[in-house]
C-alpha cells in the first residue's frame, strides 16, 4: 500500500509520464489501487485505462505483472513505456527463449517495474519455476472481457487468470480493465473474480465518431465503392473484412488501382505483421485491409477512418473494432457497407463455432484411454487443429478433462467421476449470439441514433444526446453506380490469379499460380463433375484460365520439362491436362513421376500432419537422371493444403531439379467443399 495525495501523485505523474493531471475517474481508480483494492474498470478506448495500472506500478516497490492477450498489444505498451524511461518488458512466444530468460533475470533482480505476459505463460515450465523468485506488488488484467463466455472474445486461457486471482493474497491490488463489457459480461466477471471487487464504469460515447451505414447490393458494388471513396477519405484507416481471402482480394484490387495498402491477418507470420503494424503507425499506406486480428491494442491515436465491408457478429464486436479509431478525439469516419445477404458469413461462424457432439465424445473416449496431447488427438481422430482446440477448450471448461504438463509437453487427462458432456450450454450461447447478430442488423437498418444504440447495448445507461450519425445530424450516403470503375473491376477480376505459396529455402520450388479460385463462379462445379461424376476431361475454359495465369507470371520463363502429379483417384485427368499444356506450350512432357506406395485422397485427411504423413516419401522417378539440372513445370488440378506439391518439390530438389514451378487449375480457400 502507498499513501499519496492527488497533488503528490500528479507531481509524480508529470515527472514520469509528462501528463499534467488525472481525470477524476482515473484518480478514483488509481487511489483505490494504491490502497490495495481490487478494481474492475470499464472505460472506453482512449480514456487512459493503462495509466491506471502503469502509474501505481511505478509507485509500488516491486513488480507489476500485466496479463495481456496479444503480443502486438504488449509491444505497443512497452515501447511507449520505454520511451518514457519506465522499465517495462514482456515475456512472450514471439521472443527467443534466451530473450525471455534475460527478461526473467532482470525481473528477478528487481530491475523491472512492469512485466507483460500472456495468460498462456502459466503453461511454461520455466516461467512456473521462476515465478517463485519474483517479488510482486500488483497484478493487472488487460482486456478483461476475455474472461467471460458471454463476451465477444472469450479466451479459455483467461479462465486461468480467474483461478490465479482467487489464490492471490487479499492485500495484493488487482486492476482488471476493459472497454467493452455488457452488463451481463460485467456481472460474469465480478462473479468469477469473487471477493471484494469495486466496479468503476464510465460512459462509452465517442462523440468524435461520424457513423454511417451505406446500403450495398453485391460484392462488385463494394469493390467499386471502396475504389471510389477510400482515396478521398482523410488520413489513414483500416478496412475490416470478414475473411482472410477478402483481405487479399481487396488488397490486390487496391494494388491494381495503385492505392497504397496492405493485407493483414492472423495467418501472416509475426515479422510481417510487425512490419505492417509499424507501417500503419507511420502512415506508410492509405489503409490496411484486415480481419479483426488487427487492432486490439494498436496504439495509434489518429486512425481517421474505419470501413467494414462485412458486418460483424454483434454490436459489441462492432464497438470494439471501431473503438480503435480516433483516439485523439478528432473527427473520425466510421462506415459500414451493409448488405443483408452478408448475414451468411457471421451466421456460419456462429452455427459452426462448435464441432458436432459426436466429435466431442470421440475426444473424450480417446483421452479416457490414454494421456494425449493436441497433436496426438488430431492424428488419432483425423480432426483439424481448430476442432481439437475448440473441443478441448470446452471439455476443460466443463471439467471433463484437464491439462497436465509432463516434460514440458501439454497432455490432456480425464477427470474421474466428471459429469457427461453437456452440449446444451453451447446451444444457449449460440442462441444468445444469434440474437446479437440480429441486433447488429438492427443497428444497420435502424432510423434513430446509432451511437445511442451502441452505448445502450453496451450497458451505458447515461442520459445524453447522440447526434453523430447519418440518422441524426449527418447526411445519408448511398451507393452510386460508376461505369468506369465497374469496367476496371471486371478487367481486374479476369487477371486476378491465385498465388500458390510454396516457396521455402529448402527446395528449389518457387511460388506457383492457379487458374482460378475453386469456390469462385462455377469452377469448383466443373472440376467436381470431371473428377467425381465421370464428366470427362477438364473443359477448355479451365485450361484457358490456367494458360492465362501461367502467361501472366511465367510467360517469359523457359522450361525444360513438364511433370504432373500422379493420381490417387481421378484416373488420367491430370495426365491429359498436362499433355494438352505440353502441346500448347511446346514443352516436352515426362511420365516419369510416379507413386511408390498407395496414398489416401488428401481431402479425406483433416489436418496437415496427416496430409504430410500421407504423401511423405511417396514419390519416385522412373529415370533418376530425368530432372537433373532441369527447369520443371509441375501440373495438378486442385491445390488444397499444398502438402503434395511441397513433397514433390522437396523430392525433385533432391533429385537435382534446378527450378520447379507448380501450376494448377484451381486453389481452394478455407471453407471450400471439394
Amino acid at each position, binding site marked *: 500500500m502507498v499513501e499519496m495525495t492527488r497533488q503528490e501523485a500528479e507531481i509524480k505523474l508529470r515527472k514520469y509520464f509528462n501528463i499534467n493531471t488525472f481525470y477524476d475517474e482515473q484518480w478514483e481508480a488509481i487511489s483505490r489501487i494504491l490502497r490495495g483494492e481490487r478494481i474492475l474498470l470499464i472505460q472506453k478506448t482512449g480514456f487512459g485505462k493503462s495509466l491506471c495500472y502503469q502509474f501505481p506500478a511505478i509507485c509500488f516497490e516491486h513488480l507489476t505483472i500485466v496479463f495481456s492477450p496479444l503480443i502486438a498489444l504488449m509491444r505497443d505498451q512497452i515501447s511507449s513505456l520505454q520511451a518514457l524511461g519506465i522499465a517495462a518488458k514482456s515475456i512472450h512466444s514471439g521472443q527467443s527463449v534466451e530473450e525471455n530468460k534475460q527478461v526473467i533475470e532482470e525481473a528477478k533482480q528487481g530491475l523491472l517495474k512492469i512485466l507483460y505476459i500472456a495468460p498462456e505463460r*502459466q503453461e511454461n515450465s520455466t516461467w*512456473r*519455476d521462476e*515465478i*517463485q*523468485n*519474483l*517479488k*510482486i506488488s500488483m*497484478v493487472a488484467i488487460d482486456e478483461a472481457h476475455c474472461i467471460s463466455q458471454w463476451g465477444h472474445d472469450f479466451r479459455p486461457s483467461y479462465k*486461468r487468470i480467474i*483461478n*490465479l486471482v*482467487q*489464490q*492471490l*493474497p*487479499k*492485500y*495484493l491490488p488487482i486492476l482488471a480493465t476493459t472497454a467493452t463489457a455488457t452488463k451481463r459480461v460485467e456481472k460474469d466477471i465480478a462473479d468469477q473474480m469473487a471477493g471484494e471487487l469495486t466496479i468503476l464504469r464510465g460512459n462509452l460515447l465517442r462523440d468524435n465518431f461520424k457513423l454511417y451505414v451505406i446500403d450495398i447490393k453485391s460484392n462488385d458494388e463494394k469493390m467499386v465503392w471502396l475504389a471510389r471513396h477510400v482515396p478521398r477519405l482523410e488520413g489513414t484507416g483500416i478496412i475490416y473484412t470478414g475473411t482472410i481471402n477478402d483481405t487479399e482480394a481487396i488488397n490486390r484490387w487496391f494494388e491494381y488501382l495503385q492505392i497504397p495498402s496492405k493485407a493483414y491477418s492472423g495467418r501472416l507470420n509475426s515479422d510481417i505483421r510487425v512490419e505492417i503494424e509499424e507501417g500503419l503507425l507511420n502512415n506508410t499506406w492509405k489503409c490496411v485491409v484486415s480481419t479483426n486480428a488487427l487492432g486490439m491494442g494498436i496504439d495509434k491515436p489518429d486512425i481517421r477512418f474505419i470501413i467494414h465491408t462485412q458486418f460483424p457478429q454483434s454490436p459489441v464486436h462492432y464497438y470494439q473494432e471501431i473503438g480503435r479509431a480516433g483516439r485523439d478525439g478528432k473527427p473520425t469516419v466510421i462506415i459500414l457497407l451493409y448488405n443483408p445477404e452478408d448475414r451468411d458469413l457471421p451466421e456460419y461462424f456462429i452455427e459452426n463455432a462448435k464441432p458436432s457432439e459426436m466429435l466431442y465424445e470421440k475426444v473424450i473416449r480417446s483421452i*479416457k484411454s*490414454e*494421456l494425449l496431447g493436441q497433436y496426438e488427438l488430431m492424428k488419432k481422430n483425423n480432426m483439424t487443429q481448430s476442432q481439437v482446440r475448440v473441443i478441448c477448450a470446452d471439455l476443460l471448461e466443463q471439467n471433463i478433462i*484437464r*491439462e*497436465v*504438463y*509432463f*516434460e514440458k509437453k501439454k497432455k490432456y*487427462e*480425464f*477427470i*474421474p*467421476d466428471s459429469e457427461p458432456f453437456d452440449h446444451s450450454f453451447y446451444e444457449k450461447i449460440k442462441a444468445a449470439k444469434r440474437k446479437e447478430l440480429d441486433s447488429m442488423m438492427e443497428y444497420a437498418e435502424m432510423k434513430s441514433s446509432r451511437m445511442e444504440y451502441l452505448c445502450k447495448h453496451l450497458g451505458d445507461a447515461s442520459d445524453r444526446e447522440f447526434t453523430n450519425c447519418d440518422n441524426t445530424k449527418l447526411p445519408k450516403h448511398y451507393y452510386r453506380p460508376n461505369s468506369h470503375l465497374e469496367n476496371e473491376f471486371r478487367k481486374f477480376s479476369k487477371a486476378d490469379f491465385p498465388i500458390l505459396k510454396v516457396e521455402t529455402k529448402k527446395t528449389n520450388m518457387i511460388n506457383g499460380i492457379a487458374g482460378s479460385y475453386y469456390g469462385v463462379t462455377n469452377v469448383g462445379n466443373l472440376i467436381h463433375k470431371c473428377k467425381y461424376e465421370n464428366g470427362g476431361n477438364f473443359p477448355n475454359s479451365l485450361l484457358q484460365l490456367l494458360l492465362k495465369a501461367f502467361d501472366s507470371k511465367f510467360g517469359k520463363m523457359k522450361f525444360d520439362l513438364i511433370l504432373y502429379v500422379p493420381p490417387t483417384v481421378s484416373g488420367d485427368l491430370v495426365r491429359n491436362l498436362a499433355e494438352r499444356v505440353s502441346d500448347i506450350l511446346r514443352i516436352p512432357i515426362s511420365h516419369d513421376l510416379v507413386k511408390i506406395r498407395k496414398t489416401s485422397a488428401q481431402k479425406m485427411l483433416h489436418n496437415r500432419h496427416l496430409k504430410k504423413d500421407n504423401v511423405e516419401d511417396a514419390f519416385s522417378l522412373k529415370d533418376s537422371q530425368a530432372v537433373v539440372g532441369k527447369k520443371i513445370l509441375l501440373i495438378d488440378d486442385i491445390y488444397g493444403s499444398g502438402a503434395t506439391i511441397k513433397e514433390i518439390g522437396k523430392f525433385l530438389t533432391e533429385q537435382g531439379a534446378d527450378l520447379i514451378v507448380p501450376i494448377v487449375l484451381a486453389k481452394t480457400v478455407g471453407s471450400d467443399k471439394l
Partner: protein
Amino acid sequence: MQHAAYWITISHLQRWTNAKINDLIKKIYIDNGADLESFFSLSVSDWENDYSLDERQLLSLSEAKEQVANNAFVAESLIHQGYELIPLISEEYPPTMKENLKMNYSPPLLYVKGNKQLLMEDSVAIVGSRKASSNGMKFTENVAKHATQNYQVVVSGFAKGIDRAALDFAMKYTGQSIIVLPQGITTFASGFKTYYQHIIRGDVLVLSAFHPKAPWSVGLAMARNPIIYGLANHIYVADSSNTGGTWEGVKDGLKKGRTIYIRKPEIEEDSANADLIDMGGTAVDMYGKPISHEKMKSEVNKQKEILEGLSENIVDILAEKALTAKEICTSLNTDISYQKMSVLLKNIDDVEKVKVGRSTKYRVKIPDIFDLQVSQN
C-alpha cells in the same frame, strides 16, 4: 481450494519443524479462531503480540509473506493440473496420519492426485529393501493380495524392490493403493503416465508432503518413511538389511510405539528381519499371520530336533565319502531343501566343507594326520 497460496507458504517455512508449524497453525485456527488469510494480513508487531513468536521466526515469516503472491502462481498451476492440496485442518486430512504422527510429526500440507477417499480406508503398508529377496517378494504378494481381498488400501513408497512390488501386486489383484512420494508431486511425470488408468479408475492416490517441485533426494526418501508409517493402520516389513531406510524406519516406528509386523526369515536367509523382531517387532509368517510365542518356541525346538536327529545320520553318511548338500538330501530321503541343508551342515560341528572341482562337498572332519584321498565321484 481456498487459501492454497497461504498454505504452501506456511507449510514450507525455512528451518521450521513440522511441530513448530503445526503449533502455529493450531494457534491461528483454534486459539485465535482466525485463518491464514487474516494471519498474513497482520503486521509483524501483531504477530509478535498475538502469537508470541521469537525474532528469528518473525523474520522468516516476513520473508515468507513476500512469497504468498508467487505461491499463488504455483497454486494456480497445481490446481489447474488437478493436484489437490489437503491442509492439516481439512476434513479430508487422513485421520490415521494425525493419530499416528500426532501434531509433532504430521505434515502440515499434503499434495495429492487421485482418489482421496483412499485416505479414509483401513490401510496396510508393506515396506522393505530395494534388493528384495524371493521370500520377501512372495510375502509381499501374499500380504497385498490379502489386503486387497479385505478392502484394505496398500500404502507404499514407490522405491525399487518391495515398495514397487507392493503397489504392483495390489494392482494385480485389483486392489487400491496410495503411493507416497520421496519427491515433489510435480516431478512424478513418469509415474503419472504409468498409473494413468489406475488413477482415473480411482484405484491409486499419489501423495507427497514435500514442496511440489522438490526433486528426489536421499533426504526426502528418508523423510518419506514416517509418512508411510503414519498413513498405515498396519505395517508389514518384508525384507530389511541392518542399514538403510527400512531398518531406520522400523526402529523409528517401534520407538514411537507402533506395532510392526515383520516377516520371520528362514534361518538360511541373510536378513536383518530377525534383529528387528528381537527389537520388538512382531514376527509374522509368509502370509502375514503373527506367529505366537509358543509356536515360535516350538518351531525353534522342532528345528533343533530335526537338526539333532539328522546330524547323526549325516555324519554316518559322510563318514564313507564326501557329498554335496543335494546328494545328502537324496541319501536321507528328506524333503528339506538343499539350501536349508547347507545351513544345517554349517551348524554340525563334526562336518566341514571342502571344494571338489566346481562343487562344494561336505565330509566328516578328519584329523590332519590322515591324508585321505577325496573321492572324485
